[in-house]
């Protein structure tokens, strides 16, 4: 059944819309059973779902290195991190489901290529140092993006973000620590770390999306307090955070135009290759096909398991017994 089209001029609707807008404007939370504009609901479902998809696809590039981690401590840290990402996906699907979508539908859209995930995960983790670089840069960018979302107008999403941010700060510190060990280790380790940073820096900046003047969704999302800062604002904040951290690491960032601008009070940085971002979003990144195929295969191979669990629960209920403990 299609969503009921909104009746312009319907007085009850006008009252509900006013109530909704009052909630948003006074920085309160919209909750699942409040009236909300259909566009608000659809935008949120899409944004939360794509955030959830990013978490679970993101398990792949890092999960790759669990079996090859070079110390048992690093193996444990990485297993815990990837596990957290699955958990974050769960929190976010849970939030999206409060808006009337089911997890199954959202996954179907992901698998069909009709919903996206963060383009950063279309890059490969070529060396162990990439795992550290992802922790430092990619999780750093994610945190920069996510902290403001803890105050987003939709209650379940904001609450999921609070839980996620608490866990993500651990991830970023661990990534930074891993890179620090490498950059202060042997020449081979230092070279590995520098190489990883050289490859992950620009894609991390692209995580914040296209520049403000070309971004379609920004204005409405900001009015609805789904988005609290613009792409460029967050990107700048991220750069300002990373430059001193890179100095501590003793690693360079691959941007010859990066320099402090006293007048602006921020770091200037070089031009981003937006063609690359567009190309990767459209499917032309190194790992797009691989990531999606892996995800679809896991889902398909697991189908018999999920079906069996449902069948068993039904059998147990018919017998009047408790299903398996």
């Amino acid at each position, binding site marked *: 059944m*299609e969503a009921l089209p909104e009746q312009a001029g319907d007085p009850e609707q006008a009252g509900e819309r006013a109530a909704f807008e009052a909630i948003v404007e006074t920085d309160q939370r919209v*909750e699942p059973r409040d009236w909300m504009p259909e566009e608000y609901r659809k935008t949120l479902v899409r944004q939360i779902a794509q955030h959830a998809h990013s978490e679970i696809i993101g398990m792949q590039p890092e999960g790759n290195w669990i079996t090859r981690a070079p110390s048992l401590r690093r193996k444990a840290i990485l297993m815990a991190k990837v596990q957290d990402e699955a*958990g974050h996906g769960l929190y976010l699907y*849970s*939030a999206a489901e409060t808006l009337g979508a089911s997890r199954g539908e959202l*996954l179907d859209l992901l698998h069909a290529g*009709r919903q996206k995930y963060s383009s950063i995960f279309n890059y490969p983790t070529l060396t162990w140092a990439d795992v550290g670089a992802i922790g430092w840069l990619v999780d750093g960018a994610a945190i920069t993006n996510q902290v403001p979302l803890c105050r987003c107008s939709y209650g379940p999403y904001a609450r999921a973000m609070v839980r996620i941010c608490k866990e993500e700060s651990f991830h970023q510190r661990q990534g930074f620590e891993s890179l620090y060990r490498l950059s202060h280790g042997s020449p081979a380790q230092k070279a590995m770390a520098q190489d990883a940073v050289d490859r992950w820096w620009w894609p991390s900046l692209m995580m914040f999306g296209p520049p403000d003047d070309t971004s379609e969704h920004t204005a409405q999302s900001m009015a609805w307090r789904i988005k609290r800062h613009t792409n460029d604002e967050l990107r700048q904040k991220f750069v300002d955070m990373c430059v001193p951290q890179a100095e501590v690491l003793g690693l360079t960032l691959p941007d010859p135009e990066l320099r402090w601008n006293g007048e602006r009070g921020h770091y200037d940085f070089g031009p981003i290759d937006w063609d690359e971002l567009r190309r990767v979003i459209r499917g032309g990144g190194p790992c797009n096909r691989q990531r999606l195929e892996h995800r679809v295969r896991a889902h398909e191979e697991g189908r018999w398991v999920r*079906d069996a669990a449902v069948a068993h629960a039904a059998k*147990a*209920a018919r017998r009047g017994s408790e299903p398996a403990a």
Partner: protein
Amino acid sequence: MTRPEPGGTPESLGAAASRAAESASGGPGATPRAGGPAGGPAAGAGRGSAGEWPLWEVFVRARRGLSHNHVGSLHAPDAALALRNARDVYTRRQEGVSIWVVPAAAITASSPEEKDAFFDPAGDKPYRHPTFYDIPEGVQM
């Protein structure tokens, strides 16, 4: 998902899960509600991939003296796995917490804003957002 019985006997979790499982495969549970979209409350659990696990809401009490708080939801085929999954996902960093899992379909909700609806005889409302719809083919989300 069937509507929760108004004032009826509390159902066992197993039975609720079983009805959820049946409606997940389009079985006898999926009663349309008047004025509502086909599939009724929490119909999200009934669509998408066939055989999808039903939805459970999770409540956690961090320690004695506090109350259970809603922390989120998860999918599980039965109550036992719902509890295990809740422990794994929502309490990974703590010991000694108390967990409740409740089938989402078993929750009846009312909100302060809905002054008229509270006195509506068909007062049962779904816990989650009431406007479900099938996404038509070819629509970009």
